């Protein structure tokens, strides 16, 4: 198949919902342009000298985000630093850390690694063992997500970040919309699309440069650019509901290509109609970090797990 844009080179990807084919060069341009649209809409390129801290796990999405943001930082006036939270997931995180260090060394990108064990007192592996023994009710993905967000925001803020960029792609977002609807969390559906919609003191605004990029595009981009990403899944992913929703959405997308993007477009329309709805933000009575509860989820979980240390 030939590229639908340049009509010259061999295609590397097919967009089933639009029946479009792209060659490697055209695909890379389209991919980067989609990320640039988010940066422009989110106001990242307004003014100069901004600092973007990129939340990196070492997987393809966060490394692609880091790579693209670094590439644009050579054209636009902002700085990029990578931030990795090591949650202590053995047989997984040690490999993905290598990927981040390798990319950062190659492109001379500054990075910081924060150990969850040092900061919080336990690892996700430890919390998983407690969950398997039914000593705690929180699944590994919940514990990981809560503390990753907590530490990313805290450290990005201390680093002086104007924005915290994450590697969430279109598939992640479509899954999250359904997950939140299934959990009756409408606020979470509308509080953020490609940028967090509310300005909250102590909360670094989050941007998602890969918001309009399918997970499949992310894999192809990483392969074409020789991004040192490990194409492996977290060993604890099986415990989360996300894996079921991913399978369900993939099945729907196969039957009706365009399903996932339509979910995102619907959310954007809902956000426009519900601008007045605000998430009731408070500050945790224990640690002082922003939260929707009197005591934040991180402190709630920490108080229980600390009893087993």
């Amino acid at each position, binding site marked *: 198949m030939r590229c639908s844009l340049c009509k010259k080179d061999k295609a*590397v990807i097919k967009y089933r919902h639009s029946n479009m084919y792209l060659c490697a060069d055209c695909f890379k341009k389209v991919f980067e342009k989609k990320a640039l649209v988010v940066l422009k809409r989110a106001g990242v390129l307004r003014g100069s000298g901004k600092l973007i801290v990129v939340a990196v796990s070492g*997987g393809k999405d966060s490394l692609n985000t880091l790579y693209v943001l670094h590439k644009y930082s050579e054209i636009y006036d902002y700085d990029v630093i990578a931030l990795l939270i090591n949650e202590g997931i053995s047989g997984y995180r040690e490999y993905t850390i290598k990927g981040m260090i390798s990319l950062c060394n190659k492109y001379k990108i500054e990075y910081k690694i924060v150990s969850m064990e040092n900061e919080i007192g336990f690892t996700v592996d430890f919390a998983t063992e407690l969950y398997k023994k039914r000593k705690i009710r929180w699944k590994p993905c919940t514990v990981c997500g809560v503390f990753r967000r907590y530490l990313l925001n805290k450290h990005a803020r201390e680093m002086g970040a104007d924005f915290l960029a994450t590697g969430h792609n279109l598939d992640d977002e479509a899954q999250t919309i359904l997950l939140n609807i299934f959990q009756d969390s409408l606020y979470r559906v509308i509080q953020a699309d490609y940028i967090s919609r509310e300005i909250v003191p102590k909360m670094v605004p989050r941007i998602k440069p890969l918001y309009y990029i*399918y997970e499949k595009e992310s894999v192809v981009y990483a392969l074409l650019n020789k991004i040192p990403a490990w*194409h492996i899944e977290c060993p604890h992913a099986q415990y989360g509901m996300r894996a079921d929703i991913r399978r369900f959405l993939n099945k729907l997308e196969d039957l009706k290509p365009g399903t996932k993007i339509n979910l995102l477009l619907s959310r954007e329309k809902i956000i426009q109609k519900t601008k007045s709805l605000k998430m009731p933000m408070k500050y945790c009575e224990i640690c002082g970090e922003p939260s929707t509860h009197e005591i934040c989820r991180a402190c709630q979980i920490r108080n229980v797990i600390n009893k087993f240390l």
Partner: protein
Amino acid sequence: MIRVKIISRAKEIELKENKIIAEKLIRKLGFSPDEVVVVRNGEVITEDDEIYDGDFVEIIPVASGG
């Protein structure tokens, strides 16, 4: 013979076919085209491309990470 390495299953199989469309191979392995990327002899291909006798194919899972 077509050699196929399925990364997510850490498994390698051999197909006694002279020619197969990538999408047919993907579905034969139990995936949909949105769930995997096909790399033929080191080059990324689309699901509409053909795979021939003697080719080495890697099936890369789209889902990875946490």
